[in-house]
């Protein structure tokens, strides 16, 4: 597979990979590094790509695994501190302004979800993949995905109503 051919197959989902990585890793720089790294890995393994039904689904699986590994090693190295510093900067400083900005409320709410729910919300509600595709990416049963997704959607909605009522009263 030549470089141009590879880029042609890979380019359509580079933004998706980036957005999923950002959802999981929070910081933009880290998500950019992850995307760069993932596409380099794909390029190195280009000879094996023909064996996969969908390269995009394979790339998403890789993204998920890579990000979860990153998060795990971060916790192991106590780098979580840096991570929370980042969040701190993002929330407390601009909090008053952003709380009015209702869109970022949803961002915060999704951020507070467990990793798996975060990921599935991203794949379904933002990237709009079919359940079968998500099942393939995450190696889960479609029913398990529906259960997780339903839980995530309900949590977000409840929290939104809470915040909304709080804002009015």
């Amino acid at each position, binding site marked *: 597979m030549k*470089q141009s051919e*590879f*880029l042609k197959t*890979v380019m359509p989902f*580079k*933004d998706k*990979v*980036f*957005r999923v990585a*950002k959802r999981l890793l929070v910081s933009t720089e880290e998500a*950019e590094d992850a*995307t*760069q790294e993932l*596409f*380099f890995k794909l*390029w190195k393994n280009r000879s094996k790509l023909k064996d996969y039904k969908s390269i995009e689904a394979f790339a998403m699986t890789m993204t998920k695994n890579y990000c979860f590994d990153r998060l795990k090693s971060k916790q192991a190295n106590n780098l979580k501190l840096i991570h929370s510093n980042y969040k701190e900067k993002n929330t407390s400083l601009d909090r008053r302004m952003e709380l009015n900005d*209702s*869109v970022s*409320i*949803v*961002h915060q709410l999704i951020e507070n979800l467990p990793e798996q729910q975060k990921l599935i919300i991203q794949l*379904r*509600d*933002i*990237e*709009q993949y*079919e359940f079968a595709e998500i099942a393939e990416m995450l190696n889960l049963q479609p029913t398990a*995905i*529906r*259960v997780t*997704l*339903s839980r995530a*959607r*309900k949590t*977000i*909605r409840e929290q*939104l*109503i809470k915040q*909304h009522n709080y804002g009015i009263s």
Partner: protein
Amino acid sequence: MELANIERLLDKYLNAETTLTEENELKNYFLGDNVAPHLEEYRILFEYFSTSKNERFTKSIQLNSKKKHWKWLSVAASIILLVSVYTGYEKKQERKAEKIYKETQFALEILASNLNKGTVAIAQLKEFEKAKNKIFKQPKRNKK
């Protein structure tokens, strides 16, 4: 779209039973202008989803890893280091040899000057001998 239908879809949505087409119907409704006030929270939600999808990866993808670069760089660096250590060693040897050469030269010079002193003394001695010969007769020659 009638409100009852939207509410029915929302129930399905929360249970994760909607299809992508139905979810797009919901999205279109909530991104529109006549959202029912009691469904306000969903408007926020769907607005967030659609704006999130616009985020782009703006950097260009590099397929030639930086890591490889670093590898070559380190190889080059080690070669340079080896060469410089080698030439440095050579230089040091050279300087050492030069020093030794100078030292020997110096020693030889001292030796030579001392030897010259000796020859001066001998010359003086010769003068003395000449003078002596003038004064005293030389019996050996006479005997001949």
